[in-house]
């Protein structure tokens, strides 16, 4: 069944994994410095990115129909590669050097990224699960990498237990769906579901279990409790990776499952209320619980829960079965684009924030808001970068976060989600409140310590680039439309099965 001619579509993942393995061996047998390993890892990410860019995004099923390439797969591949590059660079250059085995610390993210990329093109629950495990297992190691630190260990254990639990939920749900539909492949499950006029309760229960598993991954309330603790304990680059990569990974599964598979009225009556409640709770709890936080990483942890709420509104808005009647012509693409736009802007702002935190935490671990006092005088660039990233997360124009919030408001209004829109507005105002707290500390408060913070050239250049992107994607919105254009799921109907089969047998 495996078609050699279609393997190119799997090549990005394979190249990354093979590259990572070679690097592991090289690192073990030739005494490479951590810096050389990081350079090699960045190089392989760059090569894979160039390779991925060469694919067009016309939908295609391959590898025994277990994988699907479409606009959203391509978008997420590139998204995860960008995340990987930033994580590797941060791990090597910006933050406290890890005490032992620096090499693995920059090699493991390659495996995680390969897993995330595979998630983005999976068309089969088995493959999806394997990809997800590749992601989570490498995360278990990365989260607890500073193993002499108590908080890191606590974070590692929490993430291990809750990660395992969520995987168990997911697998259990998949088992139910497989048991009743007779297949793990999405296209076959979809065919089965189309023949059923009513959703059987077993499949419905399976769907709920799958959604619970995904809820853990994207830190949706009430499955969020791991996020603040794990964010606090993990090294900064890994926190950013979790916050952006793991969330995006969970979201791509969510898009593939609920929009690709279960988007018709009988099952939408299960997942739409489920996600609506999750979105409302995430918006409220995430943004309100962030207000009393003093530790910056915990604050960003809660805010990340809140952002899941905003993104979920867009996911719900992308459903074709919102109005209660199945309308094939309903506007589903805007909602999906809103998710892509949100993720891009979230990536930019979150990484900018964590780069700054990583630089500051080298001097003072366990950074709290009042430690930022007077940062604008100690290092204008750091203060500006952190302030702009927070303002962007808050969604104030002309920064890129505004475009994301705007899309969410637009989708919510367009699809008649008025209750959710009310919560979105409330949450956005609450969010601005706690994002202003660190800005206040940086710009108004008198510095406790006047020593200027010096940055090396590369770090300054990256920070300036991130600032430029934050402003650029917000004001010159052409750039963001270029990034997300075509990043939507292929409609099931748009790949005709015989063609796909013919291609596979080729």
């Amino acid at each position, binding site marked *: 069944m495996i078609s050699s001619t279609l393997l190119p579509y799997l090549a990005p993942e394979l190249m990354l994994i093979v590259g990572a393995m070679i690097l592991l061996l090289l690192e073990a047998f030739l005494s490479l410095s951590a810096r050389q390993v990081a350079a090699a890892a960045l190089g392989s990410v760059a090569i894979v990115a160039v390779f991925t860019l060469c694919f067009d995004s016309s939908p295609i099923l391959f590898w025994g129909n277990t994988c699907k390439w479409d606009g959203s797969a391509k978008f997420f591949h590139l998204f995860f590669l960008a995340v990987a590059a930033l994580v590797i660079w941060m791990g090597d250059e910006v933050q406290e050097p890890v005490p032992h085995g620096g090499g693995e610390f920059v090699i493991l993210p390659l495996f995680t990224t390969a897993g995330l990329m595979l998630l983005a093109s999976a068309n089969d629950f088995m493959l999806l699960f394997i990809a997800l495990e590749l992601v989570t297992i490498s995360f278990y190691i990365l989260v607890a990498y500073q193993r002499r630190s108590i908080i890191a260990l606590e974070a590692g254990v929490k993430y291990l237990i809750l990660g395992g639990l969520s995987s168990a939920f997911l697998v259990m749900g998949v088992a139910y769906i497989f048991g009743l539909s007779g297949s793990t492949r999405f296209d076959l499950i979809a065919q089965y579901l189309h023949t059923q006029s009513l959703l059987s309760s077993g499949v419905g229960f399976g769907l709920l279990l799958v959604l619970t598993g995904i809820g853990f991954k994207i830190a949706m309330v009430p499955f969020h409790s791991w996020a603040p603790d794990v964010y606090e304990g993990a090294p900064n680059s890994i926190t950013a990776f979790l916050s952006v990569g793991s969330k995006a990974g969970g979201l791509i599964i969510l898009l593939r499952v609920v929009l690709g598979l279960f988007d018709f009225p009988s099952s939408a009556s299960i997942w739409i209320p489920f996600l609506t409640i999750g979105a409302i709770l995430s918006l409220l709890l995430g943004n309100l619980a962030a207000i009393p936080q003093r530790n910056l990483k915990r604050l960003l942890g809660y805010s990340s829960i809140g952002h899941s709420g905003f993104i979920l509104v867009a996911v719900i808005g992308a459903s074709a079965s919102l109005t209660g009647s199945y309308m094939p012509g309903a506007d589903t*693409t805007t909602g999906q*684009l809103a998710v892509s736009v949100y993720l891009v802007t979230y990536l930019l702002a979150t990484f900018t924030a964590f780069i700054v935190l990583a630089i500051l935490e080298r001097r003072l671990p366990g950074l709290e808001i009042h430690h930022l006092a007077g940062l604008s005088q100690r290092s204008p660039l750091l203060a500006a970068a952190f302030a702009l990233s927070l303002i962007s997360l808050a969604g104030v124009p002309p920064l890129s976060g505004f475009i994301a919030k*705007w899309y969410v408001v*637009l989708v919510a209004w367009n699809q008649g989600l008025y209750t959710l829109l009310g919560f979105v507005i409330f949450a956005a105002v609450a969010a601005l409140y706690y994002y202003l707290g660190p800005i206040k500390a940086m710009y*108004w408060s008198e510095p406790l310590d006047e020593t200027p913070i010096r940055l090396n050239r590369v770090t300054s250049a990256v920070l300036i680039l991130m600032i430029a992107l934050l402003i650029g994607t917000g004001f010159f919105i052409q750039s963001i439309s270029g990034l997300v254009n075509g990043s939507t799921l292929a409609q099931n109907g748009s790949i005709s099965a015989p063609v796909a089969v013919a291609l596979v047998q080729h």
Partner: protein
Amino acid sequence: MVLLALLLIPLAAILFILAGAPAQRTAGFATALNLVITLGLLLTYPATPGTFAFTLDCPWTTLPGLPPIHFHLGVDGISLPLVFLTAIVSFAAIAISPATIRRSSEYYCYLLFMSLGAMGAFVSLDLFFFYIFHEFALIPTFLLIGIWGTQNRQFAAFQVTLYLMAGSLILLAGLVALVMALPVADRTFDIPTLQNYFTQHPLAVSQQTIIFPFLLVGFGILVGLVPFHSWAPPGYASAPPAAAMLHAGILKKFAIYGLIRVAVPMLHDGFEAWRPLLLTLLVGNFVYAGFVTLAQKELPTMIGFSSIMHMGYLFLGIACWNIIGVTGVVILMVAHGLSAALLFGLSGEVTHRSGENRFTELGGLAQRAPLLAVLFSFASMASMGVPGLANFAGELMVFFASYSSVFSKFDIGVSIGVGFAAIAIYGTVITAIYQLRAIKTVFYGPMPARYEPRAAVGEAVAAPGMTDVSSLVEYVPYVLLIVASLVIGFMPFLLIHIVEPSVSLLPYMPLQK
């Protein structure tokens, strides 16, 4: 292109300041240049009805799922006076700021950002840019109040920012709803196109009635419509004078401008349906805010409340929606912008030079600062609507408009418009009371001894006491604002010739004046 220059000049100034140019001079030069350009625009404005002048229209982007966004600039008789107001108040605000203020480059950059945001909002003819230019000012305002503010600056900064953000988001929801109410093929952000479209194909009344309150509340929060006003007085009292001048003088006018340009013409049935509420609330601005102003014990807070009270006239003119009323609103926006900027700037001088803002502790300052007293009296007269100053022209037009409006009639055959005119005229009486009392308590009567200059005697150090605005640089900005107010006050037709043709072209404008 010339409008683009108005935006690029402050931007360039910001970049120069960041690169190390002397902050106040660069900022002052940029705003002066803008002022000269705007005066040129006023003189060359063609006044051919029905068109926007000095337009620039280039496609900006097409985002999937959204109507195309254009970078569309242009002014007509309604926005041109506001562009002029922005230029002159920005120049004055920067000119009165102390050159030696701490962290001066940041300070002037934030002021320029506020000015840029207001200017951008007034020259944009695309809803997207109209909205985001206004939001440019949000964070700079927060920082200006927080870093250079006085009194309870921390609370005020947070309150202003969060309240304005909430207002902006409600407004955003309303604007999105407005555009999305169109059929997909006709969706656009272009304001003139939208106006034409809605005139020809008005939305269903039920739809308009739902969308209009979003715009009314959103704009209402931004402008301080009672009961959404509570952010403004403490915010303005704590802000550095220049920031209060820019915000109360210009940025707040964005919301009134939005009502005239977007909300009322595009959702006229919604406006009709909600007019009783607007009329009720604006009485709150006159009566409630008026009496609260009377009760204030501190100079800056009093001026903050008075600027809320004066919004009542603007709302009344809009509620009338006839040519004389809306023309009056535009004139009054300029007039109030000038007088509010003057009052905030001068009250800043008083509190800064005397080190005191409570009426009970101030007194007799005219002995030491005669020039300041004269300037403050002029500003107060402008605010009271004394004939000869610009406010009078605008207020009078609003009174006429209200008098001739028949909102509905009582049984005895009297239109309630007459009643609103009476309330509005009563508002000028309240203004006269608190402004005259402020002049009296601050500048006349016995002067506390600490304002006398003191030589160093024994242990006591020398103190200059109360000082006057002495050098040319210190008082020229105020004189400039007063002269502008006088010119418009004596020759209101200069502006009316520009404003009226554009107002008469607004949709749903009754034909007789």
